[in-house]
């Protein structure tokens, strides 16, 4: 098991690559979803306030 995690002496490179990839992928998905939700709400609020003005 520890032999597997040692990755033949290249553990530093292998596992840091995994960590960076996972962090970037998760952040990318979460931030995009949040931005889409925020944009929707923003546009909706804007339209509602415009409707009230009319």
């Amino acid at each position: 098991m520890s032999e597997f995690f040692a990755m033949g002496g290249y553990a530093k490179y292998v596992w840091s690559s995994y960590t960076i990839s996972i962090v970037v992928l998760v952040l990318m998905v979460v931030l995009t979803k949040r931005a889409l939700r925020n944009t929707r709400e923003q546009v909706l609020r804007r339209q509602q306030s415009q409707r009230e003005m009319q």
Partner: protein
Amino acid sequence: MWGTYWEWDPRLTSELILLFLFLGYIFLRQALGETRQADRASGILAIVGIINLPIIHYSVEWWTSIHQGPSLMKLEAPSIATDMLWPLLVMILGYKLLFLAVLMSSTRIEVLQREKNSRWVSEQLGAKTVSQQGGVA
């Protein structure tokens, strides 16, 4: 194993140019305040930048490189062990699909922001809230 962090190798250098193209694209868009102008300028930069793609692909054939020759993108059978080939192909597919999903969401954001005054957006979003409110009530 290449045994080096950096070398002015054809593959590494052409990929570095690609990185600069991406950075240039991002900063060009941000530098130009007006949307139409930024669209045009960054669009031209993106199209011109495509020239770099075949250079990256053929860099390992045209010049001597510490990178190996093509392992997948060639006419003969892939020169990679089968138990590494399948995970690689599955992961490539996974990354492409994820990229496509994120790209589509980003496009929706962009379209919503640009078309926030048009009727179809208010119809789309408005209809949604009415039905949602109807569901709650």
